[in-house]
């Protein structure tokens, strides 16, 4: 058994650690003339921290509302968040560009404010908020009624009760903060499309510069990536510290489900406000712009095969990422903190670097006679999974941490067969957060751009490349149509699977005793 575990670890390291490690080793081996670009680093760090600080509590509040409250506003909010997380950043930003091409809007106050740091922060936030909410939801999903009721009985004021709940959510908030901050730090598409990279230099821009010069300066880009990784490491350490201090198991074998209540008037108004903002500015405006563009132009079915292709790529990559994530988490249980830290650190590096660097690492690592995986769909899937692995582990880890360990101990003591334990107990208990994590990765991979560009097999164009390619050939209608079709497919898949889960987990009707 131990041998199998070691082999599995070796395979993991070869597939998910070695490629990036090799690329990152370039500046250390070759030397590089690139300095730290302090203003860029400072800007990147500032935006990351700012977005993280907004996303963490906002995400926690929204998550709690979604888990414990009921009503039309809540359903709208939940749906809005889902759609937001299925929609890729560059699609939203392109929609905004279309809006901004109207002089009236651009010259107005809104346009002026939007085309600056404020708009940038807003778009960063829109992109990372769904992550934050989903990570936080796992904390509240099975919180017993007792914790809230204890607060009520003890006569705490409403404000204090909120604060108490917030404190209980600290570990989830820390995870949300880290995800939002790291995502923001390595995000390039949004600021580039907004055209702000000149006015507000950021670290990823410096990296892209290195990659876009000829000859491509991989060593220089990798050197700058070390700064990204360093920042991500600091953030991850912070999160680990918070997690350790504040982790509290909330899913018990005996918890009663909290009754969902209708939100109070003030809460309802503020939630409605947030929902409107999300739907209106976050989703509605850019999507509407895209729909208008999509309807113009000739209607042909060219290149639509990119949608199912990327959908299947996404499913494979998501399954690989989540499977690997679950394996790594199991491995971590009962191991020392060093092991956990090392694994998390290695995988966080995959998340901290921009997709282009990760992709380049895979090309360089596997494009030789020894490991001729380059040019295969397999390598593309592996690279996708590598990029998604840190998020998958984080989401699964938070969900796992909330489970009562006794549930699994009972399964062990009653000698349930391994398969039963895995499927009927562990997987079943993690089904909801697991499905959300899976869908999230499918969405991210479906519209993924930089890794796709570098690694796709000629003749099998993924969706992101097809959209950008159509844009470049000024077939804006085709591009918009592809984007919308992809979104619709994703939404359909999400609805289907969530519905199936709800049906299979529905409690059977009460019998009269």
């Amino acid at each position, binding site marked *: 058994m131990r041998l199998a575990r070691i082999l599995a670890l070796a395979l993991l390291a070869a597939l998910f650690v070695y490629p990036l490690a090799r690329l990152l080793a370039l500046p250390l081996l070759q030397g590089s003339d690139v300095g730290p670009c302090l203003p860029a680093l400072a800007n990147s760090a500032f935006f990351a921290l700012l977005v993280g600080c907004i996303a963490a509590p906002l995400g926690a509040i929204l998550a709690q509302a979604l888990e414990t409250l009921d009503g039309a506003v809540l359903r709208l909010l939940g749906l809005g968040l889902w759609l937001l997380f299925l929609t890729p950043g560059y699609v939203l930003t392109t929609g905004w560009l279309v809006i901004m091409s109207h002089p009236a809007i651009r010259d107005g106050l809104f346009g002026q404010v939007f085309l600056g740091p404020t708009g940038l922060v807003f778009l960063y936030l829109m992109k990372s908020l769904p992550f934050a909410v989903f990570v936080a939801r796992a904390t509240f999903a099975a919180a017993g009624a007792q914790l809230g009721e204890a607060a009520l009985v003890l006569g705490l004021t409403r404000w204090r009760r909120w604060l108490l709940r917030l404190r209980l959510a600290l570990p989830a908030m820390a995870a949300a903060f880290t995800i939002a901050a790291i995502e923001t730090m390595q995000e390039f598409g949004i600021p580039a499309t907004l055209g702000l990279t000149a006015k507000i230099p950021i670290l990823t821009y410096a990296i892209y510069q290195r990659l876009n010069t000829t000859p491509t300066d991989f060593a220089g880009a990798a050197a700058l990536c070390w700064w990204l990784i360093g920042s991500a490491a600091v953030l991850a350490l912070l999160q680990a510290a918070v997690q350790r201090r504040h982790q509290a198991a909330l899913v*018990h074998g005996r918890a009663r489900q909290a009754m969902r209540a209708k939100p109070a008037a003030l809460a309802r108004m503020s939630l409605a406000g947030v929902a409107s903002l999300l739907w209106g500015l976050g989703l509605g405006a850019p999507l509407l712009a895209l729909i208008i563009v999509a309807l113009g132009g000739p209607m042909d079915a060219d290149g639509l095969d990119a949608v199912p292709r990327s959908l299947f790529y996404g499913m494979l990559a998501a399954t690989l990422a989540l499977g690997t994530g679950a394996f790594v988490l199991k491995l971590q249980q009962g191991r020392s903190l060093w092991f956990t830290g090392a694994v998390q650190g290695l995988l966080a590096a995959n998340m901290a670097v921009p997709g282009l660097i990760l992709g380049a690492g895979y090309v360089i690592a596997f494009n030789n006679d020894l490991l001729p995986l380059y040019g295969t769909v397999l390598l593309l899937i592996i690279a996708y999974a590598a990029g998604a692995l840190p998020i998958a582990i984080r989401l699964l880890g938070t969900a796992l941490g909330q489970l009562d360990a006794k549930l699994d101990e009972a399964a062990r003591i*009653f000698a349930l067969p391994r398969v039963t334990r895995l499927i009927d107990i562990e997987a079943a208990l993690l089904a909801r957060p697991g499905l959300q994590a899976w869908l999230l990765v499918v969405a991210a991979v479906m519209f993924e751009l930089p890794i796709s560009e570098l690694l796709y097999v000629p003749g099998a164009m993924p969706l992101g490349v097809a959209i950008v390619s159509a844009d470049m050939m000024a077939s804006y209608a085709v591009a918009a149509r592809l984007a919308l079709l992809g979104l619709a497919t994703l939404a359909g898949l999400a609805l289907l699977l969530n519905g199936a889960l709800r049906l299979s987990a529905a409690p059977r009707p009460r019998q009269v005793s």
Partner: protein
Amino acid sequence: MTLSLRIEKACRTLGGRAVLRGIDLALAEGQCLVLAGESGSGKTTLLRLIAGLDRADAGRIEIKGAMMDDAARIFVPAERRGLGMVFQDFALWPHMSCLENVALALPAGTAKRNDAARTLLERLGVAALAPRRPAQLSGGQQQRVGIARALAARPRLLLLDEPLSSLDLATRAHLREALRETVQELGISTVLVSHDPEDCWALADQVAVLEEGVIRQSGAPETLWAAPASPYIARFTGALGGIPAPISVQGGRAALALDGQALLLPGSPPASGGAKLFWRDDAIRPAPDGQFAAEALSASFQAGRFLVRWRVPGLAQPLSALLTTKPPPGPHRIAIDPGKMFLFSDSGDA
């Protein structure tokens, strides 16, 4: 005859603290062992060692003659020990019905699983709840399902980790009774961790009390009743008191100075210094020809009897007794049965 459970010199250190130090236990077939002790005494750790959820640092653990854990090369993990366990917070799988919870625990190869599961639920009186989810049940009902589940596994040894402590008194009593009947009827060897004395009286064939990682006293419940080995055990078995007592040694025996007289107590005198005095609730009764003078301070009604507090000259704190009638306040004469008094040195030894 093979013992159901045998533990020799088991030790366990957690977080730098020696939680268990040299535990020796033996449990015969079909018997029920109650592990008692305060929180932090190590009882749950010991249970986890028996269950195979944790490894011992030293010592040996055998179940039905087979070596489970010798703190060296041999370690049989939990899934292969053939045990059943009932948890304090039930640990029923929340996403399955009660029937499924029980059915899943049945050994592989059992025919007609659902029927077998239903039979077990019937035995515990909760067959009607079979299709419901645990979250829809009360605590007592959930624990009945938990017991049914543990029995489903046809365990060689049944482990219970404070199974009744989350329940209210009335439910506790009912469930205790149900447990006793079931276990005795099926003849299953049982280890039950509890800090409730009622569990000892109702269920135990043998009691082992853990204090600070060692077994302070073990034996049949009546043995512990008759001669508790420590203040905790005395209190556990229902003794009153725990007051400092002025002790002198007379002729190799301890003598309590009361009302200007000396009351000789059985057993050897405490080693040094001060002593703590405990007594049974019927050790002191008013008698016209009683040896000592005492003043009845107060009498409070306690479910059918009266708790009377007596001030006796010579003792800083009052003695107490449970009487069927309420004595009028004021001076009385009392008789004290020295056989029902227990003396412990301040360090806790008898």
